[in-house]
């Protein structure tokens, strides 16, 4: 008995969980690049007040549709040019980033909270309740997601808040399915049974025993649906059902500038590029998170 405990003490110390996570995450170069890009974007959004040369809504009437600085006719007053109403593109993009991250965060929080709760209930519930919840989620999933969001916004009325609610509802079934699958997988394991034998009641079993063991796939899903939310809000904004002008939201900016696409490429290209870079960086990061957190992909 003593040699056994001694052997454990002399064995090399295993790396901590954070160190192990970083080791898997950093193996994926795209994920690291995505993480840095995402970090810089978040920083830019936070510091928009300091960096932005102008207000996002101030109109410079004498300088409408001015091209970016590197093109003929551009000036350093408006580094990325101006839009048809003479507003500074760079400032609008910076403030727009705030909206995008805010939207992503709120949507993920709402969808994940609701989805995890419903998934836990479905996983632990008797069969009939499980069936009711899951069929309901199947119905939501059977609609094209943007179409359903459009319908919801049409009912609730077009605004950024309603767009966020609609997208949360649309994204929620993924969380429910994921959580339920993980819960059902974990529920019959011996450690859950022994918690029951110790007298644990249902809420304790759900939140303290089982939920922490199901979190890894949910975190990955949260990261990936963050970008989904940004994209969907931009799409709703483009269709005029999301943020309303003059809000500097990227999708709305695209929609406003649509008719100038041939005369002034920058008013359309720049918001589109902003959306592209943000979504791409988050998706890359999400892939790395999956490599690091999904136990099925672990080699050891």
């Amino acid at each position, binding site marked *: 008995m003593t040699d056994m405990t001694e052997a454990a003490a002399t064995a090399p110390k295993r790396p901590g969980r954070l160190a192990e996570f970083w080791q898997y995450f950093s193996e994926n170069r795209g994920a690291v690049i995505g993480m840095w890009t995402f970090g810089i974007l978040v920083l830019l959004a936070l510091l928009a007040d300091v960096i932005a040369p102008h207000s996002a809504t101030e109109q410079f009437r004498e300088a409408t549709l001015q091209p970016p600085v590197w093109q003929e006719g551009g000036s350093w007053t408006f580094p990325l040019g101006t839009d048809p109403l003479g507003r500074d593109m760079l400032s609008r993009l910076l403030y727009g980033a705030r909206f995008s991250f805010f939207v992503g965060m709120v949507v993920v929080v709402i969808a994940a909270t609701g989805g995890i709760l419903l998934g836990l209930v479905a996983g632990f519930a008797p069969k009939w309740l499980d069936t009711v919840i899951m069929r309901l989620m199947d119905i939501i999933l059977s609609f094209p997601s943007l179409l359903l969001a459009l319908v919801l916004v049409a009912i609730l009325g077009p605004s950024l808040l309603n767009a966020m609610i609609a997208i949360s509802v649309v994204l929620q079934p993924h969380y429910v399915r994921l959580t339920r699958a993980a819960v059902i997988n974990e529920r019959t394991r011996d450690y859950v049974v022994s*918690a029951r034998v110790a007298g644990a009641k249902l809420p*304790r079993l759900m939140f303290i025993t089982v939920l922490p063991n199901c979190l890894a796939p949910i975190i990955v899903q949260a990261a990936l649906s963050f970008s989904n939310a940004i994209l969907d809000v931009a799409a709703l904004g483009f269709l005029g059902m999301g943020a309303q002008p003059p809000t500097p939201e990227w999708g709305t900016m695209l929609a406003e500038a649509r008719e100038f696409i041939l005369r002034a490429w920058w008013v359309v290209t720049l918001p589109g590029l902003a959306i592209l870079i943000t979504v791409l960086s988050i998706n890359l990061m999400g892939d790395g998170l999956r490599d690091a957190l999904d136990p099925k992909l672990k080699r050891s």
Partner: protein
Amino acid sequence: MTQPVVTARNLSRHYESGGGMFSQRQVVRALSEASFSIDPGKTLAVVGESGCGKSTLARLITLIEEPTAGEFTICGTPGVPENWDSLRSQVQIVFQDPYGSLNLRHRVGSIIEEPLKIKRPDMPAAERASKAREMMEMVGLRPEHYDRFPHMFSGGQRQRIAIARALILEPKLLVLDEPVSALDLSIQSQVLNLLLDLQERMELAYLFISHDLSVVRHVADDVVVMYLGRPVERGSKEAVFGAPRHPYTVALLSATPSADPTRHRNRIKLEGELPSPLDIPAGCPFAPRCWKAQDRCRTERPELGDAAHAAACFYPEGTETA
């Protein structure tokens, strides 16, 4: 005479399977008419091949599932669902697989303290921690293990953690569901000796479930042999191992590997397969594989009876000559 910690009468558990729109409902008789009792400080071993209802018995006694028929009492209190809450601290279980029975997200200390946290919510945290440390010392874990996670431990140490968690509420009965069969042979004896040591110190009754007869020989006081959900022989360890009466026990014992190469081995090889528990033969369940089966065995089921060394057989071993 002391009151037995647990007495069971005719415990049965049937599962219904199928019964969907297109399949006929079938009944799996996982456990039928098991009766036994365990005195404080004693070990009752339940042996049998896989699928014979050993683990179902463990789940019934540990109050995880309700029996479909029969009754049992723990410390004199009937084990019906209304009493489950109060009985929880009397019965605890140690599982076979130490890799699945510990929550990987919790530290060893909080795993061991969890039953206390649930059952004695008003106990101060400091007292709880000191109790957990005391229990860790008792099962041979070191104080610095308190803050570690289960993945840092070997199988044997994990089983010690599981034992500490089971004993922290000071139960009267510990159900051991194949507690050592997932461990290395060298670790097995350490854990078994720890269990015997703890039994002596805490006057524990063990319901020891195993398929490993050499382990049972080491720890048991009494033995129940099960076949296809039914106890077929019951008696003291000496009686069952020394003079087995049911043909199935004889066959089981003859299949135990022996460390003595000079000993004469006369292994009985059973013919045929274990019948499906969905379709148990009408007479003695062992009759299709028994070399002594007569016509009577195939139509009538022999009862176990209440004798000290009982066997559910019409023609038990050791009676032919008499």
